């Protein structure tokens, strides 16, 4: 299903709808994924603000916010069940509908064909189908806010029996059903996407682009796609079984003898732990689905802006593969308090702590890449360096939580919230920002404003640490995750000021994102025109125009002669040599065969 030359030049004849809406061009699909994800990030971000409104100022009244969600507020104060809906939807949206879709769907689609020298994906139609399952899934998900009982209350992990029994919570009615259907649709979209990515990377690499000459972004997308293909079907199975339990009265997950609201329920013989096992068998690979693409993006940007080859390319590839493989063996560390046998817990601890090794290799290599480099502090580079910082901060607390004796104390506290917001959420978000600043010129042919980008970075970086670092203290003090109000428990009374500080920091962090939104939107239309290769980068996408034409590379596809990290090669006339520059005799005086020229 490759695109012929005839089709390549036929793009003028495509109608607006075929070109920009039901497009089969990977670049458009990537941009669609990215833009939709940004809209969803706005929704998820606003929900986060609501969470902080409640936790920072428990009992306070917000008549104006109450107007937005009349059902969720009572007398201007957030209702407890609505608070849980907000927490659930914030997590669901951010993890599945923002970070997975933007990083894998957005950058994966946009970059894979461009960086491997292909005209499009192996299955463009399937690719279009993948995107077009996403907006309907969003509509179904958000519809749950407006049905009787509201959005689900069971958290993004949808633990059974809360998620299985309609009587268990207000949001466990239709809202939870819609949540499950939306997730199932998105899983199918991800499967189409990953099938496409893997096949494309296997089949469509241009001449000379061996696997070990692929940019690390492509390696990251490749490994991520394999993870998605092997992990999401498990969640799909769990979702189907839960739907059966909810709609058809089976008892896969619901145990016997449960009494809800004074009524003995009719289900019998299920096991709620099965849901946890299935969920986390996906759930843990999923966090690497979120973090591997940023790892690739960051490696790419660090090398480009440090003007140095990435340190330890093969170890970078190997560590990604190792992380992906290990991610299937660690799901039990989410379940240390589920009553598992201590020996099993110890086994999961061992596999969990082993992940620190490939992660440390990557961190070491990133820092070594920066070592004695002539760094260009572009906004993308700042976010890439910020990523490394957040990843280390969050990764270190992962070692605490990976040990059962510590985790049993800290489980389901704000310590966990702090941990995963650093290592997975914020770090992935930084990867998203870094990638956006870096590839914006290639996507839209215009530059983003660098000054605004730097301001955005510093406010975000400080804002993230100010928001999430104090949560460690709240967690150690015993503050429970998803707790509606600190005023409910005596041992949390002293945490009011800390939570108020966190909330104010979070509001600042949220406001800082408006700078990015402004910069993004204005640059789309008024940004300075971008050259083909504004960052003087080596990879293939920078060797074609900005934005690339339909079919990406003109009449002939590029041939690759070297790896993607020939930066600051000794004796080369420029500090970068694009992958398309053939091996020529060493340039003699007079400058024949200037490799920097395109």
């Amino acid at each position, binding site marked *: 299903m490759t695109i012929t030359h005839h089709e390549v030049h036929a793009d003028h004849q495509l109608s607006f709808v075929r070109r920009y809406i039901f497009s089969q061009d990977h670049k458009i699909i990537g941009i669609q994924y990215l833009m939709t994800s940004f809209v969803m990030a706005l929704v998820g971000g606003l929900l986060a603000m609501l969470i902080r409104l409640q936790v920072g100022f428990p009992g306070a009244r917000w008549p104006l916010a109450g107007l937005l969600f009349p059902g969720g507020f009572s007398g201007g104060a957030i209702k407890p069940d609505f608070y849980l809906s907000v927490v659930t939807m914030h997590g669901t949206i951010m993890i599945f509908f923002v970070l997975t879709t933007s990083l894998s769907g957005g950058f994966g689609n946009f970059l894979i064909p461009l960086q491997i020298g292909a005209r499009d994906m192996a299955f463009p139609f399937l690719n279009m189908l993948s995107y077009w399952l996403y907006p309907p899934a969003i509509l179904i998900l958000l519809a749950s806010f407006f049905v009787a009982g509201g959005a689900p209350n069971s958290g993004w992990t949808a633990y059974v029996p809360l998620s299985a029994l309609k009587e268990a919570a207000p949001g466990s009615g239709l809202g939870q059903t819609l949540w499950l259907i939306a997730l199932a649709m998105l899983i199918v979209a991800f499967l189409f996407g990953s099938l496409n990515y893997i096949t494309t990377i296997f089949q469509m690499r241009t001449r000379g682009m*061996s696997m070990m000459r692929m940019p690390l972004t492509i390696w990251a997308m490749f490994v991520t796609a394999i993870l998605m293909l*092997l992990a999401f*079907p498990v969640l799909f199975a769990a979702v189907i079984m839960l739907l059966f339990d909810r709609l058809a009265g*089976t008892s*896969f997950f619901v145990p016997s003898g449960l009494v809800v609201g004074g009524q003995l329920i009719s289900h019998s013989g299920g096991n709620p732990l099965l849901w946890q096992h299935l969920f986390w068998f996906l759930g843990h690979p999923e966090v690497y689905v979120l973090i591997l693409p940023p790892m690739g993006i960051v490696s790419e940007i660090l090398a480009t802006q440090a003007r140095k080859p990435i340190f330890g390319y093969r170890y970078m590839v190997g560590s990604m593969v190792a992380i992906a493989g290990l991610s299937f063996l660690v799901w039990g560390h989410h379940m240390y308090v589920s009553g598992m046998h201590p020996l099993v817990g110890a086994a999961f601890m061992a596999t969990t702590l082993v992940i620190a090794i490939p992660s440390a290799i990557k961190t070491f290599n990133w820092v070594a890449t920066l070592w004695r480099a002539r760094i260009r502090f572009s906004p993308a580079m700042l976010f890439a360096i910020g990523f490394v910082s957040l990843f280390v901060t969050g990764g270190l607390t992962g070692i605490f939580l990976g040990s059962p004796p510590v985790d049993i104390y800290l489980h389901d506290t704000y310590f966990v919230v702090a941990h995963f917001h650093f290592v997975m959420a914020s770090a992935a978000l930084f990867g998203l920002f870094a990638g956006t600043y870096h590839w914006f010129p290639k996507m839209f042919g215009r530059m983003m404003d660098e000054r605004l980008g730097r301001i955005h970075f510093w406010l975000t970086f400080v804002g993230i640490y100010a928001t999430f670092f104090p949560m460690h203290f709240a967690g150690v003090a015993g503050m429970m995750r998803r707790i509606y109000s600190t005023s409910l428990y005596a041992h949390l009374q002293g945490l009011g000021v800390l939570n108020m500080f966190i909330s104010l920091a979070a509001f600042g962090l949220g406001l800082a994102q408006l700078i990015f939104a402004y910069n993004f939107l204005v640059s789309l239309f008024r940004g300075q025109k971008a050259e083909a290769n504004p960052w003087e980068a080596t990879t293939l996408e920078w060797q074609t125009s900005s934005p690339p034409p339909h079919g990406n590379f003109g009449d002939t596809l590029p041939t690759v002669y070297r790896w993607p990290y020939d930066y600051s090669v000794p004796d080369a006339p420029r500090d970068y040599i694009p992958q398309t520059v053939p091996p*020529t005799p060493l340039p003699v005086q007079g400058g024949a065969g200037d490799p920097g020229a395109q």
Partner: protein
Amino acid sequence: MAVPQAPTLEKPPPPRGPNRPNGEDGGHPRDGGDAMVRPPLPSARIAVWLLVGAITILFAAFTSTYLARRGEADWRVGPLPSILWLNTLVLLLSSASLYWARHRGRRGHLDDVRMGVAVATALGVLFLMGQVAAWRQLVAAGIYLTTNPHSAFFYLLTGTHAVHLVGGVAALGYALRAARRATNPARALEVVEPVATYWHFVDGLWLYLFGILFWL
């Protein structure tokens, strides 16, 4: 190559010469260029194997919960609808027919490819009808989805399997059309072979499910 090279910081890969464009593992077949390189495998073949991998994981998840559940004290295996034996035979014959179609196709008999695919498709439809009959047998015996854990798993596993088989029958229909339009056996097999891979997989999947549902 003894000519001096443009400098690079790339580590030379051991088996290949440094800086030689190693086109054998990539390339764009329609791109002109001096070396026309074909991809080593048709993309559809890779996609089918990836699909098979994903579906394997799906059923691994289902059946691992099944295995966990059947360890409990209240576990009872329900009656075996007798028609399942017949269904199994039909499905095996369907796979055999596809195998024969491919075998004959490789020897250049286009008509036999068409015949084999047509028979396999018909048998596939027959199997689906047989599964519906099996469910009706159980319903007649008063065994519903929620009757006991085994019946819930029985309907879940056979139902999900049937959904994948419906997709397989659709793919067989597509392959049949491609085989009818093909002018030579090789062309027909380009479509028939990936579809056959999928069909043999759902066939094997049935044997696995049948086995663990009643014989484990």
